[in-house]
């Protein structure tokens, strides 16, 4: 047997095992909007139970990346695999959500005309069919889970408040609570602390670290202090591809990262 074949076989085995260990496998993804390359051969992997922060200047492709993973946008090329065997590029938003991928928007998006309780109820994992919903009755198990989540996001006292009347930070937390109700295995969180006070930011970091104990979390963030609080691996995006990856300290020392953030 030639060494070249050996090497190839070895490499494919490595790729296989790499895929097997990932909950999210993004490989060589590119997407173009009207000639603008939003993502350019983007590749990264998230392991089960990992907390990952993704940073990058405006226009680096962070939100587009989330759109691709959650099925809102289709990539022009590349693979996106969930748990190494489900091809996410073939599914739509509802399918992907039901597979166990939750997404938090940059701007807090909750159901404003519903109470905090009903917001969580709607997000509660379980039947999503039209007729299931029509004849649905609140089960004790569901109620218990809602109560638990209310405690986690500290909105227990506001359960009957219309979501529209919550403060900005409370809405962010409610949205995170709704994601938890979906029982996702992978959570994508887009700028969770934008517009939050310092103490809210701190508490959010604690909350996300807590959540990451039982599932994988990908956080897109601008706030460096917050990313430091998360204390996790960081991926730096720039012009649609990965510029650097590693601990925050080492990434911050990377001359390319410094140039992208401070130069120009």
């Amino acid at each position: 047997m030639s060494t070249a074949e050996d090497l190839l076989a070895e490499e494919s085995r490595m790729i296989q095992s790499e895929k097997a260990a990932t909950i999210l496998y993004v490989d060589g993804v590119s997407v173009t909007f009207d000639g603008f390359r939003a993502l350019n051969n983007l590749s990264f992997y998230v392991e089960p139970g990992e907390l990952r922060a993704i940073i990058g200047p405006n226009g680096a492709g962070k939100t587009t990346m989330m759109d691709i993973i959650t099925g809102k946008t289709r990539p022009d090329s590349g693979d996106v695999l969930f748990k190494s065997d489900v091809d996410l590029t073939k599914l739509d938003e509802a399918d992907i959500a039901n597979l166990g991928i939750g997404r938090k928007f940059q701007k807090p998006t909750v159901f404003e005309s519903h109470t905090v309780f009903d917001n969580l109820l709607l997000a509660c994992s379980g039947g999503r069919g039209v007729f299931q919903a029509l004849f649905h009755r609140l089960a004790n198990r569901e109620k218990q889970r809602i109560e638990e989540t209310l405690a986690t996001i500290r909105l227990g006292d506001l359960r009957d408040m219309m979501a529209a009347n919550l403060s900005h930070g409370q809405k962010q937390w409610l949205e995170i609570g709704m994601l938890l109700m979906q029982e996702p295995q992978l959570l994508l969180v887009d700028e969770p602390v934008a517009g939050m006070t310092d103490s809210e930011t701190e508490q959010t970091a604690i909350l996300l670290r807590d959540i990451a104990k039982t599932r994988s979390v990908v956080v897109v963030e601008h706030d460096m202090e917050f990313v430091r609080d998360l204390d996790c691996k960081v991926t730096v995006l720039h012009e649609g591809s990965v510029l650097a990856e590693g601990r925050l300290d080492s990434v911050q020392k990377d001359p390319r990262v410094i140039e992208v953030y401070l130069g120009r």
Partner: protein
Amino acid sequence: MTDYRQKYKMTPVLGWLLQDRGGMILLGILLLGCIVIPIGNLVVPAGSAFHVPTWMLGLLGKYLCYALLALSVDLIWGFCGILSLGHGAFFALGGYAMGMYLMRQIGDRGVYGDPVLPDFMVFLNWKELPWYWYGFDHFSFAVLMAMLVPGILAFVFGFLAFRSRVTGVYLSIITQAMTYALLLAFFRNDMGFGGNNGLTDFKDILGFDLQSDQTRCVLVVASAVMLGICYVVSRGITQSRLGKVLIAIRDAESRVRFTGYRVEYYKLFVFTVSAVMAGIAGALYVPQIGIINPGEFAPAASIEVVIWVAVGGRGTLYGAVLGAFIVNYAKTFFTGVMPDFWLFFLGGLFIAVTLFLPKGVIGAIPAFAGAGAVGASGTSGGWRDRLAAWRGNQGGKA
């Protein structure tokens, strides 16, 4: 504040019925009407102050059918944010289905005395009944079609529109196009629906004379009962978890998708239910009015329905019923007293409601101020505040 432990222990149906003050009042009035109107017309002698004249029966029946149509629009617009500007099409299709039955009932009493063919077909030299008129000599078949045809059209139309994620003003425009296309189609003589003149000269329904007071009373009562049933069904839908999903779609559609719901199926369900209700309204309308013609498909007619709902109070269901009665009574009044001013009045009413009563007439009543679609996220405050705010804006611009 609602105590959920208590709320969910109650029998759900009884629970949401009793909690619904406006609905209880509406159902009470409908029930009262079902008793008082026939007695007032048939038992109380004509000279009495409590006598309900026959012309009033026709008017009430018409208002009740319009109210049901408004209810069906509120169900999709108020609760799911689907602004249909073509709901008159479903109403008219239901009306045509009933009209076809009534035409077959005429039998050989038509002007030309043909036992099978309606007058307009004889006039057009048609030799035999088109296939799609078969079965309409049976009342039950016609009633079924009055619900099925609008339902199927809404299902197919909705499937294509919602699957392609057509929303907002674009959806409104294609619903307009749909009703306009049907208007043009039904104007054609060779469609086999009486063309420009439509279907008319009805004699009787189920063997009962359509001109008799008894029959008219039964039709008014039937309209009131159907309105009541459809109200309860709509209320049941909006109070269920499905109803909560609908409101969520109205307020944050993409969030609902990312929560794992298939938004298009939910929209399709409520759109179809709403179209069936509109069809029922049309089927009840035609025997009481005595004619159905393509004019019912006119885009302007569908837009007027939206105004009724906005005036009454969107997203409350009973508000839509109230709005249909208020605007149509005003129409009856103004077209009688000063016909030239009706359209100005209607336009002015719509502007005034949008500016000063964003929650409609219902929202202006303090006891009901919390109800309605615009409630939580819209600007709160009474009409005085709105007026003040509006004046402020004007001042700012000047």
